């Protein structure tokens, strides 16, 4: 008896959906084993996570709060991933967006909100875009592997943030904490009722998800991105500039992540500090992949992972698990998502 793999020629749409949902569901029993080994009742833990994330207005609102940066980063990542450019640097691009917009907020605290906030978003976008284009340029011109360079730039961005909040930007009235001064009210995003949902960023994320969908499927740029991703040789043959496509996808992806960074400082923290992101840029990779790089599906997967982050907080408090427990979720789900990819690409046949 032999097991043979056959490439599928067509993957039906229902299969994509079913496999994606199954990859999340199937990961649950595996994670349960890990909980069990830690002496925690997995059913209880799942219950806590679910009710924590979706069971109350507060939980739900926090889930949305965490989903906002995931939507922006995840939708952004779907663009280079389509072109087979592996941007692992959304985290760093987010931080740069936060840093440069903070620079504006601190420098011009007296500008009215309707000028200051849009400026912060624009500058944050540009900052993230430039941070993304650096590895893009290195990839196109010097063939430097973007997985490595984007990842390394994350650390540089983080160190830059550290330097600024411990050094020149350290707030005078913060009693020595590594925080910048609090933003002036006009640099703070409005929130929905008494939640922390900074809705302008949420709306921005949803609009960009729709625009990205249009970009990919309805525009010349999207066409080029898809051709490069599907068959780079055909792209070359068709005269599509590789440099242009790489810079474009990295700029958009970095820019979107930069916007997420602006949202975090202007909407949540109201200052720049360490730990403004619990790894949104990394989680967004799984979010984008589980959403099969479809911008609208990514909105849904962002909510799911936003919920996981909130639920993770919950079990940390309720069950005394380390916060890193949630990383296990991310990791195991990613494995199942990748396995699901394989199942979709190949038919497994058993021959005798």
């Amino acid at each position, binding site marked *: 008896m032999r097991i043979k793999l056959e490439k599928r*020629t067509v993957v039906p749409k229902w299969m994509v959906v079913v496999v994606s949902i199954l990859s999340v569901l199937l990961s649950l029993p595996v994670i349960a084993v890990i909980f069990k080994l830690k002496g925690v009742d997995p059913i209880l833990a799942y219950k806590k996570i679910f009710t924590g994330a979706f069971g109350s207005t507060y939980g739900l609102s926090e889930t949305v709060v965490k989903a906002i940066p995931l939507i922006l980063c995840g939708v952004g990542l779907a663009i280079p991933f389509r072109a087979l450019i592996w941007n692992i640097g959304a985290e760093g691009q987010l931080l740069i967006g936060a840093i440069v917009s903070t620079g504006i907020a601190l420098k011009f605290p007296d500008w009215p909100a309707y000028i200051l906030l849009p400026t912060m978003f624009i500058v944050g976008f540009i900052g993230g875009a430039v941070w993304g284009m650096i590895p893009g340029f290195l990839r196109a011109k010097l063939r430097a592997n973007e997985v490595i360079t984007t990842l390394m730039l994350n650390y540089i961005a983080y160190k830059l943030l550290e330097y600024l909040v411990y050094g020149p930007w350290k707030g005078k009235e913060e009693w020595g904490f590594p925080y910048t001064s609090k933003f002036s009210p006009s640099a703070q995003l409005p929130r929905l009722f008494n939640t922390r949902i900074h809705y302008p960023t949420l709306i921005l994320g949803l609009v960009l998800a729709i625009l990205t969908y249009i970009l990919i499927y309805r*525009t010349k740029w999207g066409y080029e991105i*898809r051709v490069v991703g599907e068959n780079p040789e055909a792209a070359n043959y068709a*005269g599509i500039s590789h440099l242009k496509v790489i810079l474009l996808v990295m700029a958009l992806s970095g820019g979107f992540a930069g916007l997420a960074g602006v949202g975090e400082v202007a909407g949540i923290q109201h200052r720049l500090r360490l730990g403004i992101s619990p790894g949104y840029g990394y989680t967004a990779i799984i979010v984008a992949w589980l959403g099969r790089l479809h911008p609208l599906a990514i909105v849904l997967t962002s909510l799911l992972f936003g919920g996981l982050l909130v639920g993770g907080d919950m079990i940390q408090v309720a069950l005394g698990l380390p916060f890193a427990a949630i990383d296990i979720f991310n990791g195991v789900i990613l494995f199942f998502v990748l396995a699901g990819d394989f199942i979709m690409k190949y038919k497994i046949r058993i021959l005798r």
Partner: protein
Amino acid sequence: MVKEKGETPVVQMKGITKRFPGVLANDYIDFEVRKGEVHALLGENGAGKTTLMNILYGIYRPDEGEIYIRGKKVEIRSPKDAIKLGIGMVHQHFMLVYPHTVAENVALGLKGASLVNPTKSVEKMIREFGEKYGLKVDPNARIWQLSVGEQQRVEIIKALCRGAEVLILDEPTSVLTPGETKELFKILRAMAKEGKSIIFISHKLDEVMEVSDRVTVLRKGRVVVTKKTSETNKVELARMMVGREVIFRIKRETVEKGRVVLQVENLHALNDKGLLALKGVTFNVKEGEILGIAGVAGNGQRELVEVITGLRKATKGRVIIMGEDVTNKSPREIAEKKVAHIPEERIRMGLVPNMSVAENLILKRYREPTFSRGLMLDKEKIEEFAKELVKKYEIMTPSIHTPAKLLSGGNIQRLILARELSGSPKLIVAAHPTYGLDVAATEYIRKLLLEQKKKGAAVLLVSEDLEEIMELSDRIAVMFEGEVMGIVDAEKASIEEIGLMMAGVKRR
């Protein structure tokens, strides 16, 4: 066939038949190899050489036919079975782990290598083979440090360590420099002398003449002949390889030739290995003319096409299209000069397999204002255009939204031609346009090219199919080792004369 010394051949393949969808790759092939001989398997691309050897090595199963090894009937289900029977194969693309050493690569998966410190015994074996056959390579060198020729030796050593008595080499010289080729031939001769049997797949006549004891010529999946190399010559082999049946010509209409469209002057370019593949090619093609480029594959045709279409840089010389110097311009700039390119590897280069027929039809033209409003693509216009082309070029597809990869080979080629010809090109560069297609598709595509010529386009037709070249071209340029051996008038040319030039004998 009279057997020498009445000895049983090491390998006997009888009545081997293998069908692929739409292609009869091997048609009742009889093939045998004796102990201690270098047996060349000669034929054009697509003649069925590699298929036959993949059957012997267990990669494919034959639909019909039997295989005997040392007189015993066997079934070879996988390469593992083949290795057990003492058959080894060196593929065109090496299967080596680059960061590892030679010894580690040889030990990898080797039965009989000791569990602890497996490279120790292997190193000894490598040194022994090195001395015995001249297969010199340092067992402790890492693969990436080695030249291609040395890497190939590692592959040969791997096969020998697994007990290969019969060694199949698939176009082994295609990656080698002339010097490395000489070295390889010495090794092959040494191994044959020690009683190994070697099957040497090639389409290069010189090499077959130089290294082999016997040669089997395949053509279109059939054996043309098996004979002693000493009893034949290059010209005869060339003729057998490309086919000797009477060439019936389509009535070739001569069209008024106009201005020079493509002018190539003293063109030089390197191949992927960094070796000089074009050594001063000069010719021109006029409006209303088809210039055929004949030659055995691998003599610079691919590089020539790529330089003209902007996919490869010229190191010297000029390409002039419609009086304008376009040397080393980008593929886009050249395409915008109304240059159509029907690429050699149509699926790898000419198609985006996962995208729809409609999206593939605009691959070269999506930038045009006809198909877009600003940044947005005009879906309606594109679909209208696609429907029109599908109808005009009779592309058989369930719908214009079907992924292009689901189309048959002939329809994929129709799609590419539809796209390339839709822009009313001034110059058409067609590389092996009918390669692998069935008769109907072949006829259709030839008809299209002749139509374009009548409309006043200049056509550069690269083909290994000599019949096709003779049938379609007005003039024929023959390439050999990166040079044009001569340019002849198709009306006056004889297949013998062209065959001689293909074998590297200059016309004058």
